[in-house]
């Protein structure tokens, strides 16, 4: 055990190994990132504790597959460096360790660890660091893709929420493999999914490289291979392809396809409640040109609904997401990424690019439990129809535009959130005692910051069916009038819900709206 005061030099020293000097460490992107993340503008680390001869199961699997077979005598033991928010020396930590009871006050200062692998340059192994402040509501950092970790150190157990990180070793894993690995660290909390090591994930993707040569050293995966690896871990993928072609002459890229920031925000917002980190394929400035890279999104900040004057376009609450947090294996965990206008992102790649060229999104890969069968786009189609009839119903009488928040929820979590609402007692009991599918799409409609409706849809159904599940109306005075409006104009409004199912959406809305004014 070695205790070091936190400083840039000591951080570089702690991260170095027999193959990589502190000077080389200081030149790595990860070092620049960790300086900020752990420094006084971040977690405010005061002390580094170095644990020698650490057995990392994750590294051992890769070691057994590859490094053990090299002629060079790569060690199988790693070192683990721990970070603390308080100052202490060898004498103080010895006293803490000798206490028969765990000193909870001391361990509250624990900030997480980095495993340093005994290989050249790509030394950042299994890493679990605390997030910045975490909250679940509006205006706070919402790390929906994290889970509880239990760290065992010298006979003590420390628990906190995070998401594991590591850098690609460019042998057994490239960025896509590492992005999947981070995602599986959360998804595997559920029994459907198996957590695999980077080499197993790469092998799951294909038998050979895309150019027909050997799989290892790995040269990267394409989107289909990423999906195949995800499927082999027990999940399924929804791939969101580019939805717009653009041309930025100053970048000399010609015309290229990307996902707009508006669509990306909708997708991140929609799938976040399931809690499985989402993989983004991004086009990043690199070495004077551009390259494709994969990152894993695990949180974002969203502003609350605000009054918007009625307008022609449909308004989405997802627009209030300004920035998100992603594991970027070439920088670090929970890297802050900001939306910039309609198409651009501000990432560490752009910040450290000599010309500050922007980053773009080319694909979103949403890993999901197999039982989720209805996609976001199927629900947006229906919401556009509902927004249209509500807009016609309210006419020019409404003060603020209708704003939609579309999300997939666990049925039980949605019941818990309904319990906290101001709904009438009878309505609440009726809803809470209903049987619900495991996954539910919920389209919440706001006017200003006042919630008007939750429309729920069965996310486990088949899309050719009528998937309407229920309606919760938070202003009961609306219900009888809206019901009458739908009955009167049924034939006209049916064209908003083109559908092959015998059961009609307008009939579903009429059946689920109450008659009596309270």
């Amino acid at each position, binding site marked *: 055990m070695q205790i070091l005061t936190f400083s840039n030099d000591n951080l570089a020293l702690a991260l170095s190994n027999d193959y990589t000097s502190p000077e080389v460490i200081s030149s790595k992107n990860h070092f620049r990132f960790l300086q900020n993340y752990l420094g006084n503008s971040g977690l405010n680390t005061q002390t580094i504790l170095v644990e020698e001869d650490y057995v990392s199961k994750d590294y051992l699997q890769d070691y057994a597959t590859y490094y053990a077979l090299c002629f060079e005598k790569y060690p199988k033991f790693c070192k683990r460096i721990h970070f603390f928010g308080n100052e202490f020396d060898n004498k103080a930590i010895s006293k803490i360790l000798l206490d028969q009871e765990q000193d909870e006050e001391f361990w509250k200062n624990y900030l997480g660890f980095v495993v340093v692998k005994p290989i050249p340059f790509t030394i950042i192994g299994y890493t679990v660091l605390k997030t910045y402040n975490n909250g679940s509501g509006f205006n706070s950092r919402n790390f929906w893709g994290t889970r509880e970790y239990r760290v065992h150190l010298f006979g003590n157990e420390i628990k906190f929420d995070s998401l594991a990180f590591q850098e690609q070793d460019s042998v057994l894993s490239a960025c896509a493999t590492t992005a999947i690995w981070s995602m599986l660290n959360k998804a595997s909390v559920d029994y459907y999914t198996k957590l695999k090591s980077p080499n197993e994930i790469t092998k799951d993707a294909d038998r050979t490289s895309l150019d027909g040569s050997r799989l290892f050293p790995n040269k990267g995966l394409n*989107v289909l291979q990423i999906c195949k690896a995800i499927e082999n871990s027990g999940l399924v993928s929804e791939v969101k*392809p580019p939805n717009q072609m653009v041309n930025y002459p100053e970048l000399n890229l010609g015309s290229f396809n990307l996902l707009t920031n508006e669509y990306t925000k909708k997708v991140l917002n929609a799938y976040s409640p399931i809690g499985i980190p989402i993989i983004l394929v991004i086009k990043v400035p690199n070495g004077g040109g551009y*390259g*494709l890279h994969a990152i894993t999104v695990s949180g974002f900040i969203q502003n609350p609904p605000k009054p918007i004057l009625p307008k022609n376009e449909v308004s989405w609450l997802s627009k209030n997401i300004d920035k998100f947090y992603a594991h970027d294996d070439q920088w670090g965990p929970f890297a802050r990424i900001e939306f910039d206008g309609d198409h651009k992102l501000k990432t560490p790649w752009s910040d450290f690019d000599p010309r500050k060229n922007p980053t773009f999104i080319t694909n979103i890969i949403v890993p999901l439990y197999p039982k989720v069968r209805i996609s976001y786009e199927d629900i947006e*189609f229906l919401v556009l129809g509902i927004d249209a009839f509500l*807009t016609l119903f309210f006419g020019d009488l409404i003060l603020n535009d209708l704003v939609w928040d579309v999300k997939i929820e666990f049925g039980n979590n949605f019941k818990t959130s309904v319990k906290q609402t*101001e709904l009438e007692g009878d309505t609440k009991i009726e809803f809470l005692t209903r049987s619900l599918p495991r996954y539910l799409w919920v389209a919440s409609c706001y006017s200003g910051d006042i919630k008007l409706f939750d429309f729920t849809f069965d996310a486990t159904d088949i899309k050719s069916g009528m998937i309407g599940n229920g309606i919760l109306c938070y202003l009961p005075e609306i219900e009888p009038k809206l019901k009458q409006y739908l009955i009167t104009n049924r034939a*006209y409004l049916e064209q908003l819900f083109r559908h092959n199912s015998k059961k009609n959406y307008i009939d579903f809305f009429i059946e689920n709206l109450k008659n009596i004014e309270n």
Partner: protein
Amino acid sequence: MKFTLSNILKKDAELKSQSIRADDKTTSDFIQKTREKQDQVLRLKEVNRENLQMVVQL
């Protein structure tokens, strides 16, 4: 806090269940525009094979 209809409507506005007239061009244009937006959303689900083959390698 409990809200009422008056919190979301303009002053003195009264919500009524009016019927849509068959010759109301503004409404039929609005519905047509909504249908076009719905078609755009469905197009997001179309498969882009070239895009799926792009190698993510940094």
